[in-house]
């Protein structure tokens, strides 16, 4: 199954196909509407008129995981919320990325106690960590830019095995 097993590595054909597909994917990354805590308010501010995430084709926050490509974990992940996040991540279609926004999602920041999962990477694989508590909207946009670079660098074997 998958392109590379069928066509094998055709050199320039697959690489140009890769760049085309990767370019298409960074064009309109639809984030899952998933705000947990304070970083969600900064994410909303980033999407509103002053910082305008729509410039990167991201203005449509999809509420259902079936139509989302990117899950921005904006806020602290608690023990009770962990299975829900795992369920949401599993229900997203395959080309999916995770952006851990803020210290609480990256390493549970200020809260080092019984109730908070120490970093969302204990539950789901994270692609980009954005520091800050809460990170300024520009920091979030910078995080999304690094995610775009990461997507452009993906090889065909990564996703079409």
């Amino acid at each position, binding site marked *: 199954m998958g392109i590379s097993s069928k066509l094998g590595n055709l050199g320039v054909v697959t690489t140009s196909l890769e760049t085309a597909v990767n370019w298409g994917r960074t064009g309109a990354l639809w984030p899952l509407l998933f705000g947990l805590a304070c970083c969600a308010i900064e994410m909303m501010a980033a999407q509103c008129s002053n910082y305008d995430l729509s410039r990167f084709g991201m203005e449509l926050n999809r509420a259902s995981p*079936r139509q989302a490509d990117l899950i921005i974990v904006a806020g602290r992940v608690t023990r009770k919320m962990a299975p829900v996040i795992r*369920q949401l991540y599993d*229900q997203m279609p*395959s080309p999916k990325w995770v952006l851990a926004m803020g210290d609480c999602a990256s390493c549970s920041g200020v809260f080092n106690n019984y109730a908070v999962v120490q970093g969302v990477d204990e539950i789901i694989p994270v692609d980009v960590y954005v520091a800050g508590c809460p990170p300024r909207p520009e920091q979030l946009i910078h995080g999304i830019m690094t995610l775009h670079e990461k997507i452009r660098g993906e090889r065909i074997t990564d*996703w*079409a095995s």
Partner: protein
Amino acid sequence: MLDSYAPAAVLLIITVVMCLLIVSLSTLMGPRRPTHRKLEPYESGMVPIGPAVRRLPVRFYLVAVLFILFDIEVVFFLPWAVIARQLGLFALVEMGIFIGILLLGFAYAWRKGALEWE
């Protein structure tokens, strides 16, 4: 006479081919990784309660039927509206009668309380 329809035909063919191409390529080429959790119905992140197929109250059916009725009415407007000017007064009166009858139906449904939810 037929050649005036040629552009429409070309457009039709292109769209059909494009759609088939997209759908077939993704089903054939795309990797399949079904997991139990991915196939579960999505219920705001929780494990769904109860069977997905449930008995729905009849009021939904009533609302649906009323919608289809008046939607079809609008479909009849379209061809008439395109050439209404050439057809002149006669077509206008005829369409007026058509709308009147349907308005009667609408008033009846309203009076009977079909539009109220309870």
